[in-house]
């Protein structure tokens, strides 16, 4: 299904529209307040961009350095060419350690890989523990609609109804009570699970560690209680030092939720050590390529700087109106419109690069200065080069080029168009219903053109000048 078709469904969904409206603009406002209160924001943003860009320049060496250091701490580093291979590796680890239940804290790479379905097929039970992800899992494995607020599209009434149905409890309307209910359901899972699976916000080459940023504490529980911890993340997540981590931590939560820092930042280094009273006995890293290596050194390399903060979608007028599910894959909003065609194939996401107004808000707020609209424009160019645009558009463009290359024809055409539009405007300065394309004016007016075209005016002036 195309983006436009999914969008049509979402726009007609009055409940979804109500839910989206409830939170619309809130994250943008929190971010704006956090940025205003932090005088060094721009300087930190510049440095954060530099850090991410510098790692990409020597990504091969940074990864090897990370791997070597992680191995020294007793962790095992595994590599996966794609999501399927990552799933196989994780199932192997689970089998090796006799794992029946896996508690998971949020990992977008796990969504990319479709890990939950793979685990279930292998007879291993995955339990999502981030509140939002848990809600989605018990709602028949619904997909997240935002990378850090996965259930932003749901109302508390919908969650309440879901909990009552799945947990068999009395419906609750208070968000605090709902949160407690999930806490009480999930606590025994943390204590009983054999494996914890986390994502990784950053991999630190200096110490061979993974850094995990959470508010709920589920990330800590997943990486502390079970016997085995697997950190599943993309190969682009390396940063050189703990100082660099500190810089990125000044900008990630502020960009994401407007927090100066998240409640928890955990730096995890290797398995349980001699004398440690807690922690996993085995620690694994699964580093996934999944299309990332192909971006390095090319037009889209800057996309690998992404730190998954969600600011671009929080500021996107299209995302805010249609919600995350319209984008069709795990990454929504502007970053999704770039990543989905790159990771899934341009022909798999035909209209995603078009799913933006190129208003540029996303690149203004992106904490690592990714020129998202420019990347979308490049993807559009690639679509044209590969002949992936619909025949009607190609024909239209060709016709346009043919006319534009013949000034006399163009002049006649524009004169006719002006007459037609002014006729539609009926003497006013706005057109209320656009005759040939009424959809264009279903939500807005179209400005009526001036009486004389630029070419007429210019010609008249030239004549006047000569006189």
């Amino acid at each position, binding site marked *: 299904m195309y983006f436009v078709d999914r969008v049509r469904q979402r726009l007609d969904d009055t409940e979804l529209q109500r839910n989206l409206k409830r939170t619309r603009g809130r994250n943008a406002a929190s971010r704006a307040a956090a940025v205003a209160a932090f005088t060094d924001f721009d300087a930190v943003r510049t*440095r954060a961009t530099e850090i991410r860009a510098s790692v990409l320049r020597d990504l091969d060496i940074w990864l090897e350095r990370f791997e070597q250091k992680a191995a020294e701490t007793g962790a095992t580093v595994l590599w996966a060419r794609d999501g399927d291979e990552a799933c196989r590796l994780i199932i192997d680890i689970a089998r090796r350690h006799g794992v029946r239940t896996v508690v998971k804290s949020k990992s977008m790479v796990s969504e990319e890989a479709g890990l939950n379905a793979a685990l279930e097929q292998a007879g291993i039970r995955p339990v999502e523990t981030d509140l939002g992800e848990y809600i989605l899992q018990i709602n028949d494995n619904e997909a997240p609609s935002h990378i850090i607020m996965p259930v932003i599209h*749901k109302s508390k009434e919908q969650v309440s109804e879901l909990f009552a149905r799945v947990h068999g409890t009395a419906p609750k309307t208070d968000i605090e009570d709902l949160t407690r209910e999930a806490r009480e359901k999930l606590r025994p899972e943390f204590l009983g699970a054999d494996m914890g699976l986390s994502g990784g916000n950053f991999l630190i080459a200096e110490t061979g560690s993974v850094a995990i940023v959470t508010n709920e504490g589920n990330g800590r529980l997943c990486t502390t209680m079970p016997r085995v911890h697997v950190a599943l993340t993309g190969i682009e997540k390396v940063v050189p030092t703990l100082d660099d981590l500190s810089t990125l931590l000044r900008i990630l939560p502020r960009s994401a939720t407007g927090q100066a820092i998240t409640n928890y930042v955990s730096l995890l*280094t290797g398995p349980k*050590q001699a004398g440690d009273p807690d922690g996993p006995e085995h620690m694994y890293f699964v580093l996934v390529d999944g299309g990332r290596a192909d971006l390095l050194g090319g037009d889209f390399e800057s996309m690998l700087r992404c730190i998954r903060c969600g600011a671009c979608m929080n500021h996107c007028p299209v995302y805010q109106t249609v919600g995350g599910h319209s984008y069709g894959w795990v990454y929504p909003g502007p970053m999704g419109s770039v990543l989905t065609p790159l990771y899934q194939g341009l022909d798999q996401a035909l209209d995603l690069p078009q799913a933006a107004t190129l208003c540029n808000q996303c690149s203004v707020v992106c904490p690592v200065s990714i020129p998202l609209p420019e990347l979308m424009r490049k993807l559009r160019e690639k679509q044209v080069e590969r002949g992936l645009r619909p025949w009607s558009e190609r024909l239209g463009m060709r016709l346009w080029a043919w006319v534009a290359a013949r000034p006399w024809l163009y002049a006649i055409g524009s004169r006719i168009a002006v007459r037609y539009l002014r006729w539609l405007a009926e003497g006013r300065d706005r057109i209320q219903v656009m005759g040939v394309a009424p959809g264009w004016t279903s939500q807005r007016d179209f400005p009526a053109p001036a009486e004389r075209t630029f070419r007429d005016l210019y010609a008249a002036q030239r004549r006047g000048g000569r006189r």
Partner: protein
Amino acid sequence: MSSARDDILGALRCRTGRGPDNAAAACAHVERTILQPRSGPRPSMPEDLVALFVERAQAMISTVDLCPDPAQVPARCARWLREQGLPLDPVVAPSLADLDWRGAGLEVRIGAAGGGDRVGVTGCFRAIAETGTLMLCSGPDSPAVNSLLPETHVAVVPRAHIVADMEAAWQAARAELAVWPRAVNFVSGPSRTADIEQTIVLGAHGPYRVHLLIVG
């Protein structure tokens, strides 16, 4: 069949233009970067780091009590627990075993918290003024679970451990810790979630309340 590792690193080397002529220089650059970590822009800090720490910690919804006399820590802790109507049987990190907890009327257990513990007490390696954050390093004397499983977390923060920012805390860790800890947890107030309708609720999966006793 070549391994995934070889394939991925091979592709990356091809993309970064790696070859015998530049590999050694790039490795040297990587090692240098790690040996001489470069700080990014660090916000300027006031003289009084303790006051800033208190203000920022409260902003993250930690509660704070100043306790000048270290010997008074158990009594202050007990008083706060009573005031809040909380259980008086905390599990205390071994690093704080020397304090006279029983003398203050607390039925303490020294060790690592389990699922049934309701109050956990920890020290802290450093505390960060910039964000009002505790830096907890796991180890034999400082279990990570004490600040995680119980619904209430009480942390003892020596005044001298309060540093300006995370960079300063890392510097201290690099200099002082013989073994790098398995887990370094930065804790800023009680756990929370805003997943449902973006309404902030405290006590998601970790503690509902974090109380700081600033000592010295």
